[in-house]
Each structure stands twice: as C-alpha cells, then as structure tokens.
C-alpha cells in the first residue's frame, strides 16, 4: 500500500505544475486562433466552452490551412471523442446528483482523468479530478486570453520542451496503472494499437482505438494481485 501511495503524486502540487504548462499552450492557442481568423471573443469562448486543447488546436489548424468548417468540426470532434471513454472511467469516482455530474463533465479531459485515476482511494481520486480539472481550466483560459490579446511574449513553447511536458507528466501518472498485470497488458496493447494506427488513421482515432485493449479485462480469472482499481469500481 505504501508503495502505491508513493507512486501517486500529490494532486494539488501536481495539478498546479500541469496547469502552468497548459497555460503556456493556452497562449499559443490564443495566438493561433486569432491568426486563423477568429475574433478575440471567439478564441476565448472556444477555450471556455469547448475546453479540449487538442480539439481546439485541430479546429483552428484546419481553418488556418483553408479547410472547411465541416472538416474543422470533424477533426476536432474525433479528438474529443476519447473524453467519452474518460467519462466512463471516471463515473464511479464522480457520483452524485445530476447537476453535479453535468458540471464535472465539462472538466473531463486527459489531465483530470490521469490525475484522478493515478490516486488510490476515492477521496484522493475526487480531489485529483477537481484539482487538475480546475487548474487546467483556469490556466488554459487565462493563457488563451493573453495569447488572443497578442501577448505572445513567451514564444514557441517547443523551445522550452513544453510539448514533451505533457507525455512526461502522463508518464508519472500512468505508473500506478502498471502495478497490475491487466494494467500492464492494457498499456502495452493500447500503445501498440495507437502507434500502428498513426500513419493510417486521422488524428484522434489512434488513441481512441487503444480503448480496445481493455478487452483484456474480460479474461478469466481476474488477477487478484493487482485488482485494486477494479475492486474499487465494483464497490
């Protein structure tokens, strides 16, 4: 148990660190959105209402390269689809009244899912979800506003390696999932599925299709050693 606790990062500190990196990308998004022809109000509204970074970058990217609105919506929604899978995985954690769950739904993204599911007990999972969700929401929207208003003082986030900050952060948050055999197999299969699909499927599909790897959970019998995640869900 202590081993698992060690593997789970403190949600508050981790969420603020993650939020800061997200904020820098928010600035880039704001700059790109306005460059693609969106008004400042539209850029800000998109970050507030769509709140899925990869989808937003895809949408304005398609628009900027002269693509149709339909193509922009299509690419963006393909990237947004995996949030549905995250919502499903988070539903045992985010129980409660309907308005509460409708509000929580808006914050279901890569970061909040990773932060929440890296925790061992229900209270920490909830704290992880809200800490990461709110931190990312605040920094992403602040960044967008700054970028859209022309505050591109920071420059290209890639110069600081910030594009690698997200996979690096997710690495730390994936560790607790790898304690069970099923978790390791799902991770391995999911990774293979995604990488195989990268050259042939549109963006968003590779990660979404990795969900097929969870079928490993149908195996019989369950591995008793590492079923802490599954048993918590079942209760």
């Amino acid at each position: 148990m202590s081993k698992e606790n060690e593997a789970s990062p403190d949600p508050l500190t981790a969420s603020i660190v993650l939020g800061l990196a997200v904020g820098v990308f928010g600035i880039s998004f704001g700059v790109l959105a306005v460059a693609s022809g969106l008004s400042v109000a539209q850029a800000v509204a998109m970050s507030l209402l769509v709140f899925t970074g990869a989808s937003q970058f895809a949408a304005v990217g398609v628009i900027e390269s002269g693509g149709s609105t339909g193509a922009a919506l299509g690419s963006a929604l393909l990237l947004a689809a995996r949030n549905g899978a995250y919502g499903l995985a988070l539903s045992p954690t985010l129980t409660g009244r309907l308005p509460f769950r409708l509000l929580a739904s808006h914050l279901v993204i890569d970061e909040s899912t990773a932060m929440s599911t890296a925790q061992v007990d229900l209270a920490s999972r909830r704290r992880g979800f809200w800490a990461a969700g709110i931190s990312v929401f605040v920094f992403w929207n602040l960044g967008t506003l700054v970028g859209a208003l022309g505050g591109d003082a920071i420059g290209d986030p890639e110069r600081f390696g910030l594009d690698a900050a997200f996979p690096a952060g997710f690495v730390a948050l994936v560790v607790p999932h790898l304690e069970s055999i099923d978790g390791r197999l799902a991770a391995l299969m999911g990774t293979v599925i995604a990488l195989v699909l990268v050259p042939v499927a549109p963006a968003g599909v590779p990660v979404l299709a990795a969900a097929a790897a969870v079928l490993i959970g149908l195996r019989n019998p369950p591995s008793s050693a590492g079923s802490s995640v599954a048993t918590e869900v079942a209760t």
Partner: protein
Amino acid sequence: MSWPALLALAGGAYAFKVLGLVVFGGRELPIRLSRCIALLPAALLPALIAVQTLSTDDRWVIDARAVGVGAAILAAWRRAPFPVVIVVGAAVTAAVRALA
C-alpha cells in the same frame, strides 16, 4: 469560424463527456465490464504518451521528445516526484533541441 460552428463544436465536445460520465456511466454493470472500464485509463494514457512522443501528424518521428520522455520515464521509474518528472521531460527535450 462562425459562431454557430463554434457552438456546435462546444456542444459536440461536451456531448462526448456527458455521454461517458452521465449517460453510460454510473450504471450497475457486470463485474467483467466494470473491470474493462476501469482499465480504460491504463490503455488510453500510454497510447496518448506514445502518440504525443513518437508522432507528428500521421508520421512516426523519433526526435528530441523521445529523449526527453525517455528521461522522464527513468525519473518516474526512480520514483522522482511529479514536478521533477515533468521538468526533466521538458528540460531534456529543450536541451536536445538546443544542441541539435
């Protein structure tokens, strides 16, 4: 992008989230299905790491990110705290880019 298109995108993105968390989530499910659902982050997050690290658009790419994330994996494996893992990933990537 027009306002109606922007709102359609917002509605669509939110619909996926609600579909997972509210519409399909929170139901009583057979234990095996629950086990599969609990494995979703274990399958999707490593896939996301791989795609963010090893691809650009629809191409496989090995570049500075692979070195940086490799260093982050090493740091996580040595049980470094979260902020350290994330800073190692970014700093090593930036250093490799600066040297290349």
